[in-house]
């Protein structure tokens, strides 16, 4: 990858390192005794801190995953060039859109 993609990839990795630890710890804690929609929504509805945290999380995922996949596509499938990059940009937007939709769904529900 190029220098710019590398910087973005590693920066998002740093953000995700923190976000993932928090997320995993939360999930492992929250699933105790089963997890219902009510329990989730109790915590996320109208919670601005939740919105901010997971908003940042989604942005980081939306850049980190496609750049990572780019390496896999180039090296394992030999797919390079603009078509490949275009597909990955599309994937990034899809992740961003779906992620934001999911985060706001639990905030607004």
């Amino acid at each position, binding site marked *: 990858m*190029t*220098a710019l993609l590398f910087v973005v990839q590693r920066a998002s990795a740093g953000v995700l390192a923190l976000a993932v630890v928090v997320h995993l710890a939360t999930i492992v804690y929250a699933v105790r005794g089963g997890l219902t929609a009510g329990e989730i929504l109790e915590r996320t509805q109208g919670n601005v801190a939740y919105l901010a945290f997971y908003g940042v999380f989604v942005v980081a995922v939306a850049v980190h995953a496609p750049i990572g996949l780019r390496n896999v596509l*180039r*090296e394992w499938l030999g797919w390079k060039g603009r078509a490949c990059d275009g597909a990955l940009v599309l994937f990034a937007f899809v992740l961003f859109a779906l992620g934001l939709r999911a985060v706001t769904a639990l905030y607004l529900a």
Partner: protein
Amino acid sequence: MLHVEVWRSADRGRFQPFAVPRRPNQTVLDVVTEIQRDHDPTLSYRFACRVGMCGSCAMVVNGRPRWTCRTRVVDAVTTDGKLRLEPLRNLTVVKDLAVDMVAFFDKWMRARGFFEPGAAIPEDFAVVRPESEERRAADEGIECIGCGICYSACDVVAWDEAYLGPAALNRAWTLVNDIRDGAQGERLDAVAGDSGCHACHTHMSCTTYCPKAIAPTYSIAGLKRAVVRRAVRRSR
């Protein structure tokens, strides 16, 4: 008796078996030489100094890239006495065990792995303190003799033809640390594109197999940091 399988490249290529007696202090180079002299004079292979200084004898021995002159048979052979000899990976085979090193050195050039004095003529000798961080970093990588073992071992080279490879990038790193060099910007540009230093995924096969105990992985990590620092500076 050693059961040796040697890669022969004629037609589509095949392994040719030989039986070679074991001898005291035998190296794999001894085995190949005995095969070529006493069994099959059509076998092609390379060596020069035969004492671990030139790197010409590099090839793949039982799956591991190494110098045959510095590989004792007892260290390389399987428990049932088998030796498999192949040419270095990731390079075009010229014949049998000899590969074309041109691509390897082309990438050296593409990574700007050569000293550039710069436009200004220096007024005096450069003072390079041996204990300085840069000199120590350069020292760690400067002993490379271009044998190609790291290049052969590297998976990313196998997966991406354009990847500059550990040796070229390691050499670029030693020059990044050469305070006299006048082309630092161009060099970092050369190593930073797609198929440059950022394509290294720290498999560390290069570092594992380098006979000079050089660690190209850490040199490449240094290049990654240098490129990032420069990118951050330029964006300000």
